[in-house]
């Protein structure tokens, strides 16, 4: 048990109890509620020994995503992290940590880069990989059909489950209806909803996972 407890992913500074390895989380909330920052913080927190990080940046440049990650306290060793950016206006980046795919609609391309980075980390001895996907809403907006998006999400969540990883995947409820979100949610182990109250406070709520605080929590 104690070994299991040590292996759990911890989220310092967020009202989320540790989760077991192999957990895929859907993080749902509008941009103005700081939802992306929450998803990034969940990847930034915790011990970093023998861990790697892969971020899929469909909604921003790779450089901006790395800055946002550093901005929330992300401390991953650059040798063990990478970003996949999807169609940057300036073409390929010089940053060795950034891989570029043509467009957010190119799910095959994103998937291949993802697998390649993942296999690379695995080969270098990284035991567990944290994954951030920003965002499912962007992928859905660009995709011509829904089926490839499910296929892509199964690919990511399958890798996380089989290798004791952690994934936080962002979705924006103001861009998708609730039916679509719950359909996507089926592929995940749990869901973190993020919102900003009228008074400007930030709240989150965890659903679908055991031993989590009940209802909306301030953070």
């Amino acid at each position, binding site marked *: 048990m104690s070994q299991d407890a040590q292996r759990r992913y911890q989220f310092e500074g967020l009202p989320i109890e540790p989760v077991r390895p192999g957990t895929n989380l859907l993080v749902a909330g509008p941009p103005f509620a700081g939802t992306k920052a929450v998803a990034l913080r969940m990847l930034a927190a915790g011990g970093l020994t023998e861990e790697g990080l892969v971020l899929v940046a469909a909604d921003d440049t790779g450089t901006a995503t790395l800055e946002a990650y550093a901005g929330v306290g992300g401390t991953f060793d650059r040798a063990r992290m990478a970003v996949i950016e999807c169609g940057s206006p300036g073409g390929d980046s010089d940053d060795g940590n950034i891989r570029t795919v043509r467009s957010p609609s190119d799910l*095959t*391309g994103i998937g291949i880069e993802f697998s390649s980075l993942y296999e690379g980390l695995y080969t270098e001895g990284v035991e567990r990989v944290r994954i951030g996907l920003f965002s499912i809403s962007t992928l*859905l907006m660009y995709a011509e059909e829904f089926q490839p998006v*499910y296929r892509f999400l199964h690919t990511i969540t*399958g890798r996380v489950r089989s290798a004791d990883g952690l994934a936080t995947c962002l979705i924006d409820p103001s861009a998708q209806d609730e039916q679509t979100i719950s*359909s*996507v949610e089926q*592929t995940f182990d749990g869901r973190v909803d993020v919102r900003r109250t009228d008074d400007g406070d930030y709240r989150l709520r965890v659903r679908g996972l055991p031993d989590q605080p009940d209802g909306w929590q301030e953070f």
Partner: protein
Amino acid sequence: MPVTVLYADGDESGRTATAKRLSSAGLDVHEAATLDAATETIGTTAVDCVVTAYKLPDGTGLELFSTVREAAPDTPCILFTDAATSEIDTAAFEGLVAEYLPSETPNAHERLRELVDELVTRRTQVGYPLPDDEDARLAALEKYDVDDLATQETLDRLTKLASHFIDVDKVFVGVVGEHEERFVSCQGADLDPLERENTMCTHAILEPDVLVVEDAHEDDRFKHNDALDRLDIRSYVGAPLHGPDGAALGSFCLTDAEPRAFTDEEIHFVRLLADETAEQLDLRRQLQAARTGGDDR
């Protein structure tokens, strides 16, 4: 049954070595030296996983995956290649989604075998949401004989009742199998089996109660689904058929070519018919089990 793998690579010595390693790990490997030969295998053989080099003598691995996604869309695809990701031109293949494993990875054969295993057992490349209890659901489904003549007559009575009382084009009982949905009782049209990723019942079996789609063109999950348009399905109400252990075997559903709303009364009626269908199926399963002295639970 062993896992069946189609493995395409033009380089004979490399291909033979990899195929040998996979075979000795217990996989049933079909080798192909060209895109043409691999495509032919897809047409004639049911395979659980497709592994290919990127460059084939007469095309690319992505062309092969295109054929796979048409013929058997759930099949996991793996590029096992010495081509770098930057050499892979995905422009015409954006929606395929495949795994990529560099063939020069240390222990590449071992990793490939692991990956095949993971993708097949976890169903990692299916284009639709899966129920949490999918393995148990499929195991439960195997115990039912829905094609039995007496069962068929019972189901036909129930679908006829629905089509008599609710004004829609089609009524059917759909059984959602591992890769496709079969329609075992239809009013209004005879439907051929449909790939699971294209059916609304795939989504209905995830619902605790009932799935209502008033207009498929206004629903993100279905608006780009050409198969539904071809079948003139624009609106839908479907209730899952729950077995005694709760697993959803399929659904009882009504569809129409026009967008329409369904009243609470209509939805409730569909729910009742779905429960009756599920109970009829289960009683017949128990009867069959009692006759053959098998497991009747």
